[in-house]
């Protein structure tokens, strides 16, 4: 046993090593000469240590197991010689099972590239069908929710800009600024005018609103003064220099 001339790295694990030793000794798996095999196994572990190869715990566990079996073999037999009394049985079963898988692995090894001459195609893109789910889950209450949602949205919806309706109702947008200029221009020459005359020639509602807002704006700017001339509201031109504070009279009065 001095010259154990196997490569240390070829074994896949302790069972692999054990199978190798059994085969090398040309003995049966079912009648392992435990004493001899254990000795060789231990020698191998020693060799591993000698070559600074880390002996994994699995090898040590099996070593302990082998020593245990060896010691059991040395004990005198009981009278009832049941098969199961053989301390080697479990180990033998493990070795047989492992050996079968080694054979199976060999079978797979031979077939490993058997499919390599066969080619496949990638999946085509296939548009999925659309399937309508049943309407059964939709109830009238969903309709109520929907209409309520819309009502809420309408309430909080931002006011639609006037521009959106210009085409629809044929209104033209009149800016307050343009009306301010127009009123001021008239007042500069006339110095005073009837409030109602501001609306003379006004064609649309928006122009009327713009004209009204223009008057309010001019009051705020202290450029005009509103007076109640016996039931007829008048607008008077104010000189800008005069820093006279003017109270806001209700133009509708």
């Amino acid at each position, binding site marked *: 046993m001095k010259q154990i001339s196997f490569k240390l790295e070829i074994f896949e694990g302790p069972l692999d090593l054990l199978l190798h030793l059994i085969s090398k000794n040309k003995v049966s798996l079912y009648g392992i000469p435990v004493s001899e095999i254990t000795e060789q196994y231990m020698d191998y572990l020693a060799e591993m240590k000698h070559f600074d190869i880390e002996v994994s715990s699995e090898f040590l566990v099996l070593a302990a197991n082998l020593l245990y079996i060896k010691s059991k073999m040395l004990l005198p037999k009981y009278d009832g010689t049941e098969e199961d009394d053989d301390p080697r049985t479990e180990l033998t079963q493990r070795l047989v099972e492992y050996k079968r898988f080694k054979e199976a692995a060999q079978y797979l090894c031979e077939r490993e590239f058997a499919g390599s001459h066969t080619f496949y195609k990638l999946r085509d893109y296939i548009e*999925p*069908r659309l399937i309508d*789910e049943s309407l059964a889950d939709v109830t009238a209450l969903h309709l109520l929710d929907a*209409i309520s949602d*819309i009502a809420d949205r309408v*309430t909080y919806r931002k006011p639609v800009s006037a521009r959106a*309706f210009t085409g629809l109702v044929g209104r033209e947008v009149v800016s307050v600024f343009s009306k301010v200029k127009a009123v001021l221009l008239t007042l500069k020459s006339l110095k005073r005018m009837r409030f109602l005359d501001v609306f003379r020639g006004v064609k649309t509602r928006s122009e009327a609103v713009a004209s009204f807002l223009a008057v309010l704006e001019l009051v705020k700017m202290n450029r005009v003064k509103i007076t109640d001339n016996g039931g007829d509201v008048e607008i008077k031109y104010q000189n800008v220099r005069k820093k006279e504070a003017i109270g806001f009279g209700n133009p509708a009065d």
Partner: protein
Amino acid sequence: MEIQQIEAIIEAVLFASGDAVSVDKLCEITEVDKTTLLSVVAHLSDTMNYERRGIKIIRVGDKYQMATRGEFSEYVQKITPPKKRNPLSKATLEVLAIVAYKQPVTRTTIEAIRGVNSDNSVTRLLELGLIEETGRLDAPGRPSLFGITDEFLRSFAIGSVLELPPINEFVIQDLPDIGAEGAQQIIE
């Protein structure tokens, strides 16, 4: 090489490629001249068509490609799991609610209420048979008026629109009504 074998090679190559393969490439692979190749492909293609096989060979410019025969597309489509589509999207449900609560209504009214174009939903509801055209508004363009159908009543298990869950009357009234009539009112 026998014709039959060249055909098989072309079949294998077109299959594995999945894509269109140029005539030149096929010539290179099968090691035959272009004239031979074209006639072999034509023969293979004819056989596939004659036997009404599941696959066929189509010509794409100066390339050939293997494809499924069109008449089997409905079966082929079953490979991909179908996409389930909610029969009523939120938008469609809203349009249905508007029609149910405010019928008869025009597209313009529906759109004004929802504030967005609703043509797709209207079309979808017509397809599903949940709404129908009930008449036309006596206004410029004579727009269609939509109302709910018997199918709608069956689907929602209600006897008539009167059985719809009650909603505050004002909510309905407050909804903008800018159909042809509504537009008239605004113009005055």
